[in-house]
């Protein structure tokens, strides 16, 4: 019994870490390989989760529609939810890229914070869109009729890991292509890249959109894991900050590194939950803040003492240079 509980715990740990690894891969395309400063990941997280939720659930009817409002409900299968989430995030990233990618990198950062906050405000206040602050519940889980619900997490873990590996291979392939080398050139020295005749704006836009699509898939995976979403999940703390810590801790510009970073930082985050058990009673209610404080301090330590992260950047990415 005890062993069973530990295994169940490990499985749910691995699912969340795997979902975060997908976000980290998305951010790694933008930041690690192209130097795009996106600090509005929570916005793409939120859009991905909601779009997939609304694609895969039916539109409420009858009495149920009195209590749950959603703008559309297509009742389509899970893969189409993932696809829709990716496409929608790509479109939003494209729109945000137009005014910001020609300017210095900070402007993208400020604009992405803005989009993340705005998205959360819209989902919170517009009840007709996706049920306002109460959010959506009862999202379907793929292949859920195959096994007993008690063991469903095993199947979901396999799904998450497969999607994570597919995205990993896709990015590895892309980054080792001429296209990927241009991205790295832009990150290294934008002016030299431009002088080599590369259209910087187009390449940055492709990287931003690609990364955002991956984040959208991450959001969809999260939504179908928890089966219920509401706007208060997608805060800057939970949706953006921890992902940055994972990418920097693991090593920006290294896909294996950021996956490792996701698992290590998620383990630290879960570990601090056990640590707060020992807090005096008066501080118990504030335990989450103490945990975030520790994660913040961890980030500052890494930035100062080990800025390259655990694995560091892969210097050679061409398969011709062995």
């Amino acid at each position: 019994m005890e062993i069973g509980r530990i295994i169940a715990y490990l499985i749910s740990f691995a699912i969340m870490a795997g979902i975060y690894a997908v976000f980290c891969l998305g951010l790694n395309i933008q930041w690690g390989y192209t130097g795009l400063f996106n600090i509005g990941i929570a916005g793409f997280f939120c859009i991905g989760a909601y779009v997939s939720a609304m694609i895969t659930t039916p539109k409420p009817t009858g009495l149920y529609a009195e209590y749950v409002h959603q703008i559309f409900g297509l009742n389509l299968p899970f893969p189409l939810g993932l696809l829709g989430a990716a496409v929608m995030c790509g479109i939003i990233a494209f729109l945000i890229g137009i005014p910001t990618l020609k300017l210095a990198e900070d402007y993208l950062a400020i604009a992405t914070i803005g989009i993340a906050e705005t998205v959360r405000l819209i989902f919170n206040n517009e009840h007709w869109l996706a049920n306002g602050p109460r959010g959506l519940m009862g999202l379907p889980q793929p292949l859920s009729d195959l096994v007993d619900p008690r063991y469903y997490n095993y199947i979901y873990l396999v799904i998450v890991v497969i999607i994570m590996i597919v995205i990993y291979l896709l990015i590895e392939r892309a980054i080792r292509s001429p296209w990927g080398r241009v991205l790295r050139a832009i990150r290294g020295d934008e002016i030299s890249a431009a002088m080599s005749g590369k259209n910087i704006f187009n390449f940055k836009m492709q990287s931003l959109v690609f990364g955002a699509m991956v984040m959208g898939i991450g959001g969809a995976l999260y939504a179908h894991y928890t089966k219920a979403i509401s706007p208060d999940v997608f805060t800057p703390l939970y949706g953006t900050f921890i992902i940055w810590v994972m990418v920097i801790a693991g090593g920006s510009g290294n896909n294996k590194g950021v996956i490792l970073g996701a698992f290590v930082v998620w383990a630290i985050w879960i570990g601090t939950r056990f640590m707060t058990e020992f807090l005096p009673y008066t501080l118990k209610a504030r335990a989450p803040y103490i945990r975030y404080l520790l994660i913040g301090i961890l980030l500052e330590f890494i930035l100062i003492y080990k800025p390259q992260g655990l694995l560091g950047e892969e210097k050679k990415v061409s398969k011709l240079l062995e």
Partner: protein
Amino acid sequence: MAELVVYGIVLGSIISLGAIGLTLVYGILQFANFAHGDLMTVGAYIALFFVSGPFAWIGIPDNTFGPFSFGWRMVIAFPFSMLAVGGVSILLDRILYRNLRNRGSGRVTLAISALGASFIIRMVVLIIWGADYRFYRPGILRPALKLPLGVKIRPDQILILIVVFLLVILLHLFLQRTKMGKAMRATSDNMELARISGIDIERVITWTWGIGGALAAAAGILYGIDVQIHTGMGWNFLIPLFAAAILGSIGNMYGALVGGLVIGVAQQVSTAFLLPTYKSAVAFFIMILILLIRPQGIFGGGRK
């Protein structure tokens, strides 16, 4: 509508104070300080600490001045809190940003570090004070003064405008008349040139952080007097602050002043058509418009 414009000017003056600090730091250190909003939060809470803690114990009277909602405690807490946040801001530079500068980290690394600092600051505030909304003086509604055009305004709000005006004049005189002010402007124009002219850049940076932090504290307290204080207030101000600084051209103090007023008025007037919670979204859309039409801001010359 006239009333909303007046309230917008009050809110805008608070945004201006924050944006001036942000734009000074941006101009001299060349990086986006994402922790600036949270310095406002700290300022507001440190004033709350003084008002409800030490000043009560040492027996400073609690009664208020005439029509205002505060008394001696707040008058004394105000400069103390500005000093304290100026200190916090310099401390952050010593612990984090200076280390990164010395290691040759890029401006984006500094900005990420500032983002981390903003979360650290907010978490410390949350651990000490909790997540509840607070007032400096709960439950007392002051009578509003009636101005022409049906505008009702509280005496506190007029005082906020006067305090902001005085602080801006002081900063103007500091930048124009004192040696350190001139050194700051020189560094903002061209750091290398300033360095070879014998200006101690590290001292200039320390002063910049100190002034930026103190102004942020003032903005936070004034917002607390006008509305209320809560731990997310600084983060909610971040978008309006950046919108104001960009609108007024990054690095330009007077631009940030004008930008803050424009953003504040736009945010308040928008509440006639939109839910008040969309205020920061309004600032965001104005910012996107500026970035599309004139990314260097209204007072910027050509692009750098």
